[in-house]
């Protein structure tokens, strides 16, 4: 009885039948491929990544010291405003960080404007803000005209090229209440905002392009799914073959 009882044991790691052994070996091989492909790749991605700054961060870093002391040159102020606008146009910008950047851009534009431009700038911003709160649709002709004229004025003050994407953002990011003072709380927040949004985890796996994708993105979004289907297909083919070899009829 005792020996009989011991005959009936199933353990993945100690297979007792030929089929169970075959199955165990196949499962281990496929799960290893699966685990290395998914987790191994991502551990590798993690191991080789380097914090890589965007051009906007490099420019910001060069000028920040003088900006924070409020003794920057015109060129430095423009570069700072450009970097701040680059973050404001980001896809993931958080609401609470937006106001610090809006303050930075508004203040920079106001500082860079000559006395005549200062009056025009404030008037245009206030007019645009009023219109923004009144209109029902962004296709309102007066709203569009004011936005365009403010964008042209601010872009020329900040030295933005005509086809620069940031010219489309500038009129929406200026705030009349933020122009005269670069607030202490904004100043305090700017370094961490810049490093959060403008430094990225990059490596040759993220920079190399494959079929138009950054390679790592292609790997996870396309290749891994193909691999999963292939592993499943391979498993079924091998199990069918094993059943034929061992003459098993399910």
């Amino acid at each position, binding site marked *: 009885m005792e020996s009989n009882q011991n005959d*009936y044991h199933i353990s*993945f790691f100690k297979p007792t039948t030929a089929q169970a052994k075959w199955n165990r070996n196949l499962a281990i091989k496929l799960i290893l491929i699966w685990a290395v492909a998914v987790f191994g790749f991502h551990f590798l991605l993690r191991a080789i*990544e380097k914090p890589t700054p965007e051009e906007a961060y490099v420019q910001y870093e060069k000028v920040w010291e003088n900006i924070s002391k409020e003794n920057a040159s015109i060129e430095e102020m423009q570069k700072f405003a450009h970097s701040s606008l680059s973050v404001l146009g980001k896809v993931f910008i958080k609401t609470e960080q937006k106001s610090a950047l809006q303050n930075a851009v508004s203040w920079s534009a106001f500082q860079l404007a000559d006395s005549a431009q200062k009056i025009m700038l404030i008037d245009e911003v206030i007019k645009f803000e009023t219109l923004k709160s009144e209109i029902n649709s962004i296709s309102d002709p007066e709203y569009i005209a004011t936005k365009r004229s403010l964008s042209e004025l601010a872009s020329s003050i900040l030295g933005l090229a005509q086809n620069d994407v940031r010219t489309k953002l500038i009129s929406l990011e200026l705030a009349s209440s933020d122009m005269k003072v670069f607030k202490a709380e904004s100043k305090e927040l700017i370094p961490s905002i810049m490093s959060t949004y403008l430094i990225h985890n990059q490596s040759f796996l993220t920079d190399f392009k494959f079929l138009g994708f950054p390679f*790592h993105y292609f790997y996870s979004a*396309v290749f891994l*799914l193909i691999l999963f289907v292939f592993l499943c297909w391979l498993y079924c083919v091998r199990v069918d073959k094993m059943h034929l070899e061992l003459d*098993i009829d399910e």
Partner: protein
Amino acid sequence: MKKFLLPIILLLSPSILFAAGASTQLEGGFKIGPAIILITILCVFVLVGVIFRAKDTADFYAAGRGISRIGSGMAIASNWMSAASFLGMAALMYGSGYHGLAYVVGWTGGYVLLLILMAGQIRKYGKYTAADFIGDRYYSQGLRATGAIIAILISISYCVGQFGGIGLMFKWILGLDYAPAVIIGGSVVLAYTLISGMLGVTKNMQIQYVIIIVSFLIPLFILTFKFDYFWLLPQIGYGSVVSDIASGVPIAETTQLFNALGHEYAMVPSPEFVMPWDPATGQTFFQWIAIAFSLMIGTAGLPHVIQRFYVVPKARDARWSVVWGLFFICILYWSAPAYAAFGKILSANPEVGKLAKDAIVVYTAQLGNVNPLIVGLLAAGGVSAAFSTVSGLLVAGSSAFAHDLYVKIINPKASPKMQLLMARLGTILMAVIVTLLALKNWALIAQLVAVAFSLAGVTIFPLFLLGIWWSGSNKQGAIAGLIAGLLVAVIALTYFIAGKEGVTLPYHEFINYWLGAWYFAWIGAPLAIFTNIVVSKLTPETPLEIRKFLVLNVHS
């Protein structure tokens, strides 16, 4: 040719006429075109079900055996593809870039585990529900009841995200606020489930799959074509969209491309959308790995997924249906990130405003100036995906209540009429609970659904894995493992709900990070397995008949 086209055009004309008048505004009032499409699709589901029922009753089993592997694969895919796949995945990637791919990888990679470790063996075991398997394998009525309760909880958790998706789409179609849209959507899905049940509708999952996938793919072909990418295979063509987001899209000087609101197709460089665990997204490497792992083991432990393998005639068919099912699921999963990528560029101008992430698939099509009729079809496809999953889950949950709990434990002498009444009451009760939870709007659809996966990962997955592969796992081990898994789940969910309700518990940041509600299975599952093994080793051996059954029936 015109002879054939004319009746089709006439048939479609009311919706075309109404849709033509629909505004291109992202939100707005009642949209008659999409509403008609949605009603039509739901009626088609019910009608086709009724027609197939008439055929099936005559030769039900032969018909079941006659379903091809491809057909079974489509059924698996249709059963799987819910609002989380249709709406939620694009939402996650829109909101957190590469981090969202953890969900894509997790929800597909889990099928490899399911196939290699479970599908064939589950079929050979020959039970009908997860609770049945647990009760029999661990020779315990208490565990059977616990298994049934867990299956109901998983169904509820899974449905909450679906109701959120239904609510968002009803909000868009009917032009209502979220709360009334959830209540109306919830009522419609409940009515649909009850009517389908009363008519004895046989769900034709192949047709559901075709409608869902076609509605998802058409706008994508249009978007890639319109914005000058490789449109013949948009699942590859959108790679250049991703690269464009990383490097920025300058304002074109020659060809002018605009979104529906008149903004240039342009944006500043945004590598944070593309780069892994970017600080800007607030997500980390650990979270990526934990989510992918939790979703994978959750997939292999979801009762309604496992249950599909009981109904196929042979173990071999069960295995091959997984291959086809995964392929059909991947068609959607290869495509969903493209919506997120297009959505990012098309909504880059601050004037677009903050969009509800879970509806980004529809907003992207709208912003891309896709024909309102096709956008309506897309929205209706999203609702259909949620409906087909929810109705299945409500039925599965209510049968667990009526069959596994009421008949097997509470009232074994219940008449079939009483059992039916209990099932219907169970369906209504579940729908009410789910609606109330969906109104809370606690998280994104995919995240809410991921809670169900983690719950399955810490409870059902360890019981099935050890139950199939180690005869040494016994009743005591199963109980201890289940307690360990549930303990992790309770801690994680308590902190999650408390946080959402504004209550700060001790160490809330630590717990919310390491035991996130949608990935607590990364530690809960190994802990449950370890506890099960240790306790099983210290307690009396599994009865001989169970071990014998495993050796002779499951592994031979």
